[in-house]
């Protein structure tokens, strides 16, 4: 066989995948998305549950929910400031 034909033959070295490659790849992409999405939902659900639990505990403890009760200075307002100053 003549090796001078190699350049012509090189151009013929073309290949294709099977016809269902598109569907296989799309399936892989969907599977990978499904793997990531539950993790995000799992995290968000737990963060939301933790916030609700904290708010419930504050309500039980202080009887109301406000900015002051959340940051914990409600008791400071209600107590006698003179007592605090004497203590200091």
């Amino acid at each position, binding site marked *: *066989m003549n*090796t001078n034909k190699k350049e012509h*033959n090189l151009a*013929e*070295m073309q290949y294709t995948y099977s016809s269902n490659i598109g569907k296989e*790849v799309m399936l892989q992409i969907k599977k*990978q998305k499904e793997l990531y999405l539950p993790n995000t939902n799992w995290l968000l659900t737990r963060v939301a549950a933790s916030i609700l639990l904290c708010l419930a505990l504050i309500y039980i403890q202080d009887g109301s929910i406000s900015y002051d009760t959340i940051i914990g200075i409600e008791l400071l307002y209600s107590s006698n400031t003179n007592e605090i100053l004497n203590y200091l």
Partner: protein
Amino acid sequence: MQVHKSISDNELIERITSGEEDLFEEIINRYQGAVATTTMNMLCDAEDSAEVGQQVFIQVYRSLARFRKQSSLKTYITRIAINHCINFLKRRKNFFGRSYELNKARNVRIKSEANQFEYKELLNQAFQNLDDKHRSVIVLRMIQGYSTIETAEILDVPKGTVLSRLARGMDKLKIILEEELKYEHQ
């Protein structure tokens, strides 16, 4: 999917990135031949080629929003395919050693001896004996038909390097083929 064949690549990309993700299948159908030709000639193994091909398209899907349209989509996909192949070859060599590819080459030879000996298989076998850098230039320049400048862009090397690798690679290929053909006639 027939309807989407008339849509340009740029429009397809815009529609995919804005939520019509199923249209990505059309991109796969358009460029699966280019990816298969690149991976099959680089890896010389149908199973590895199919595996890497899937990885390539998944990577293309993920990075589609970052595609800046400075080159054609085909060039962009081929660049990803070549990079995946080079990384795959490195891992394969690290794991199996160089002898793996040479054994694979002999297997191609044995298979082809059983059937009618074909020049395509002989070339495939000869590719196994080329270095990755020579192989990648020959695949892009001689098989895929990219210009020297496009090949340089894809491989991220200067134009002169492409030309020298091409010349050296073709010389090596010629020597390998001549040896193989001598062996065949003995």
